[in-house]
């Protein structure tokens, strides 16, 4: 049987990806340019007995998904810049309480209300540093409609596997453009569910590290009772200020992601084997970059593309290795140098780094990148 094919908008594909992953709860608040995610979920979730709720504000939306996640549901919310700022309070909560949830954040111009319908990539730092305190961060930056579907599935997998919030961050272009998508059959893409406790309710502790860095999470309304708090907590889930526990728990939360970068980090290398100039790009900008690299190759310039698919954790190791091979990096992005700073950090001066920054609500076009390739080659 031929696979199901459709011509979908990016946001619609994100919603379909969530459903494929087994999402049964969506809590949201309307914000451009992410609203289609909520709209599709409002139509599809009740059909499968799932729940959609439009909350009173962005914070409430984030709260509702954490609450629902604690009952065992796979949960999704969608937002954009200003909403992401508001949600940060409870993204931190989800980090410390280790509650799986997925946040699709469609990047539009900022700061503040900025440019609601213009594309941007200026939320990538907010994905890591937006909420206060030390915490793990996973952020995926898909570049096509198909990938937005697939990466949303992967976001759910990572959220459940590592008991942590995961962000999917398409820029407005990827979220709003339409492309053909081939729906994977059920079972074709891996779907990971959270680990249920193997001990009896009496023995259960929600942060029991004897099961490793990611302790099993029970569900409210099952046979297990437990306490969840946003305070620093011990393995039993109750607040503690005991220095050794707090230190150990904080370190473990961050380690869940940092010790597993090889499992989480994904990227694509294109024409890099003999490249002298490497463009490092993500999201829709990486599509401009590929265009530019192809043009450069036609003109005999040894250019390549390193496409970041997982923005956080950042592909430090790969970029550091690449810095030893290429002469220069070009980092086009729709912000004033967020990824560029990270690339400079990884390059450690072994390759020069040349940013192309655009924050006027227009995409970075291939011509701009090609010009820069020629300039630095």
């Amino acid at each position: 049987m031929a696979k199901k094919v459709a011509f979908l908008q990016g946001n619609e594909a994100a919603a379909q990806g969530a459903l494929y992953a087994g999402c049964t709860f969506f809590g949201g608040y309307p914000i451009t340019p992410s609203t289609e995610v909520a709209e599709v979920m409002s139509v599809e979730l009740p059909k499968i007995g799932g729940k959609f709720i439009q909350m009173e504000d962005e914070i409430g939306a984030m709260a509702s998904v954490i609450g629902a996640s604690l009952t065992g549901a796979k949960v999704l919310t969608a937002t954009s810049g200003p909403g992401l700022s508001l949600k940060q309070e409870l993204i931190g909560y989800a980090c410390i309480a280790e509650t799986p949830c997925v946040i699709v954040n469609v990047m539009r111009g900022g700061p503040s209300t900025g440019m609601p319908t213009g594309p941007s990539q200026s939320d990538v730092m907010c994905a890591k540093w937006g909420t206060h305190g030390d915490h793990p961060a996973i952020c995926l930056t898909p570049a096509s409609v198909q990938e937005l579907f697939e990466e949303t599935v992967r976001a759910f997998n990572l959220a459940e596997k590592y008991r942590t919030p995961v962000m999917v961050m398409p820029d407005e272009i990827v979220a709003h453009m339409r492309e053909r998508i081939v729906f994977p059959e059920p079972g074709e893409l891996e779907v990971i569910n959270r680990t249920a406790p193997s001990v009896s309710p009496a023995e259960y502790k929600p942060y029991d590290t004897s099961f490793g860095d990611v302790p099993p999470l029970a569900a409210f309304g099952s046979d297990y009772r437990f306490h969840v708090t946003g305070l620093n907590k011990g393995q039993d889930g109750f607040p503690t200020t005991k220095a050794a526990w707090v230190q150990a728990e904080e370190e473990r939360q961050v380690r869940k992601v940092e010790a597993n970068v090889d499992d989480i980090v994904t990227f694509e290398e294109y024409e890099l084997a003999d490249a002298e100039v490497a463009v490092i790009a993500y999201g829709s900008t990486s599509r401009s970059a590929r265009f530019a690299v192809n043009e450069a190759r036609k003109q005999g310039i040894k250019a390549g593309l390193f496409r970041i698919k997982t923005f956080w954790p950042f592909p430090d190791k790969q970029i550091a290795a690449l810095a030893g091979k290429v002469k220069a990096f070009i980092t086009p992005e729709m912000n004033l140098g967020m990824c560029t700073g990270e690339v400079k950090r990884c390059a450690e001066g072994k390759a020069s780094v040349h940013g192309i920054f655009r924050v006027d609500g227009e995409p970075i076009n291939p011509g701009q990148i090609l010009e820069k390739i020629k300039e630095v080659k």
Partner: protein
Amino acid sequence: MSFDYDKYIRPGKLPHIWCPGCGHGIVMKGLIRAIDTLGLQKNNTAIVSGIGCASRLPGYMDFCTLHTAHGRAAAFATGVKMAKPEMNVILVGGDGDGTAIGGNHFIHACRRNIDMTYIIMNNNIYGMTGGQFSPCTPTGAKASTTVYGNPDPAFDVAKLAIGAGATFVARGTAYHATQIDKLIAEAIQHKGFSVVEILDDCPTTYGRRNKFKSVIEMMNRLKDIAVPVKAAEKMTAEQLEGKILTGVLYKEERPNYTDEYAKVIERAKK
């Protein structure tokens, strides 16, 4: 016969953190007696709170407990209830948490008439942070941030809840201990969003600043100002001056949110 509160309290969690004479413990006991009366199952009951002194209550209770962020209890609880409508969901918290930072979540939970019970312990102050004025601090009262007297008018929590659409609203006081469990039990039994405001005392940060000589004086004040709704019907406006009505203040039957959403699911599946 002594009531066995221990049956519902997590072993080793007492004594609690509340100050001497704080009524939160009295409210917690009322809640436990209400739960006992109704026979709510521990595994099937979630107790959700925000931040503040009162919001520490769930930590002591042997149920599914969720101590959330400041003001957000109603929104977290909405997620729990939506995802598992068969669970009993009880919210607890203070006046600052519920009506200031959590005001928006509070009014929308009322509007949705989602089937949960919200117990607001109103002690007219932010206790945990050291006694700053809250939206429920009376005009003229002293707080650490209104040393010249509070210029703000105070919220009437019950009126706010009724105006926003809560379908069961009751008020008691920490003094009227025997009434607390009855009001809470009736609220939990009510199908829809129920609010129980308990007028409470904070001797440490409110009493001290507002010339209350003791916990006892604060408790006696609660006794003096409370007028049961029935009794109030026979009283003149002058007699009611400075009094606060207690008992079940409002009750109506209206479709509740999770039942209505179940109908959405039915329609979507067609």
